[in-house]
């Protein structure tokens, strides 16, 4: 924050980078396109309308709120587009358009602009908006459509996590390969594991996100599920690909302003997300694990950051200090 000062004096090193917010956000949009295409293929052309409404209202909400608050315009940085797109990917395809638009307004105005705009939000806007919508419109938010049924007439189904793993094939007719390809009921963007992994790899290759959070998050869930499933790898795959874990781990937990700064902090954050997700999935009555895990961990990020502040070079070790104090 420059705060209108003409001369900014800051400590070295002074690195110049060609990276801008707009470029990063554009990369995230590119990374989400495979998931969007997969969603159109699986859930029909209505997906495009939902995404358009969600993105459009997010950008409009950003524009109007910046205007009303008399702050400089930030719609050019594409962050509202990313929020709108991620929110759309978090909705079922049958969602009424007004709910999608309302979700975008909550994400942009309440979660982001009330706290000062980009970089100042206390939690991931898309996740928070999703939870607000879920608590408000439970029926519409849980209206899952069977994959590919848009061609023949829409039928509803349950998400894989809503049925037990042992009954996955017999009750839903969904195999693990189907889950990998996204042929299952669920939110628009969370079903196709293949597309999400492609997008994640793109972001990792472009160094937009660091691998620490997705690795710690997914790894923790996989490890806990391995123990809970008594070594059944199919059970692990079912939990890794089920729900919104991949979408959450790659695209929402890695939001810059709501994740810790250091690698150590990021790993703690990822493990925390994974533990909460696993606990909710294994012991709670609801299937909504990833959103709540990310939101809860978002709120403790300031504490993680404080606990993992790196020691400046040349300063005495902490252990020594405490020993001296004890003496």
């Amino acid at each position: 924050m420059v705060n209108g000062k003409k001369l900014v004096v800051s400590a070295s090193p002074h690195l110049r980078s060609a990276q801008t917010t707009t470029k990063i956000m554009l990369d995230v949009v590119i990374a989400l396109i495979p998931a969007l295409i997969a969603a159109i293929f699986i859930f029909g052309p209505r997906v495009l309308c939902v995404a358009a409404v969600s993105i459009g209202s997010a950008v409009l909400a950003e524009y109007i709120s910046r205007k009303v608050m008399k702050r400089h315009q930030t719609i050019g940085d594409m962050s509202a587009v990313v929020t709108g797109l991620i929110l759309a990917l978090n909705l079922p395809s049958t969602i009424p358009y007004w709910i999608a638009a309302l979700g975008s307004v909550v994400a942009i105005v309440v979660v982001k602009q009330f706290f000062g705009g980009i970089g100042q939000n206390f939690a991931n806007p898309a996740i928070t908006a999703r939870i607000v919508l879920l608590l408000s419109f439970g029926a519409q938010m849980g209206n899952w459509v069977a994959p590919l049924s848009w061609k023949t007439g829409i039928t509803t189904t349950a998400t894989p996590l809503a049925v037990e793993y042992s009954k996955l094939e017999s009750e839903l007719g969904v195999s693990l390969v189907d889950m990998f390809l996204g042929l299952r009921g669920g939110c628009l963007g969370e079903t196709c594991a293949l597309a999400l992994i492609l997008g994640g790899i793109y972001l990792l290759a472009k160094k937009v996100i660091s691998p620490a959070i997705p690795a710690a998050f997914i790894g923790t869930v996989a490890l806990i599920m391995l123990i809970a499933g008594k070594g059944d790898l199919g059970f692990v795959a079912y939990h890794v690909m089920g729900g919104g874990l991949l979408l959450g781990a790659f695209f929402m937990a890695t939001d810059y302003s709501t994740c810790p700064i250091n690698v150590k902090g990021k790993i703690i954050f990822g493990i925390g997300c994974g533990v909460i997700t696993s606990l909710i999935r294994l012991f709670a009555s609801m299937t909504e694990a990833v959103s709540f895990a990310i939101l809860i961990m978002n709120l403790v990020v300031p504490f993680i950051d404080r606990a993992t502040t790196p020691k400046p070079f040349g300063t005495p070790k902490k252990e020594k200090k405490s020993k001296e104090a004890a003496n």
Partner: protein
Amino acid sequence: MAEKKSLRKEFTKGLIRENPVMRLVLGTCPTLAVTTSIVNALGMGISAMIVLICSNIVISALRKIIPSKVRIPAYIVIIASFVTIVQMIVKAFVPALDQSLGVFLPLIVVNCIILGRAEAFAGKNGVIASAVDGLGMGIGFTIALCCMGAVREIIGAGTILSGAESLLSIAGITGFDGITLIGENSAISPMTIFILAPGGFFTFGILMACANRIAESKGKPKAELGCAACPMAKNCALLAKGEACEEKKEGTEV
């Protein structure tokens, strides 16, 4: 004339400028808990206002008799007596309201606004001024609760004044039990989160911002309790030196 003017000031300060909920941020627990509907908010506001006025009068009348060392227990006893009376009245005449307010009705005993006014005002001022102060603060509290109740009920449940019959029946009016804005078959459905706890916090924050804005636009500084109401004022080392303490600094900085 001067007396009258200051009485008017004591009355109006509670409405916006020193509104107990929106500006002094006192009594937030009942504010968040009972404002799921306008009727609940109104019932809570009126009950608290009656207790506040009565306790202010009695505490102010007894302020020279109560030793300052035991003043807080003495205040609590006085407040608790009035709360018990109000609770019995509500139970007898508006049982439906008593059920929906639940434990928050007896909890008026520990409402910060009432103890705060006793400590900050009634314990130092005359009976009439204290009564007027209680009335102003009570109305301010009721207005704040009703604003929150209105927002939360309209958005969260799609009704206005639902359950009004229980209050109106005391006045002998029957047959009006609120208006349904969003029916079961309408295209949109109410946003349930607003009658849940998170919606309460959203509404509270936004209304607080609005109240600050209104007070600011009238050129009034940000409200603060000041050292007079601080229970630590007697032992405060900073105050002895003539400096402001951390809490006060934070309040004046903005």
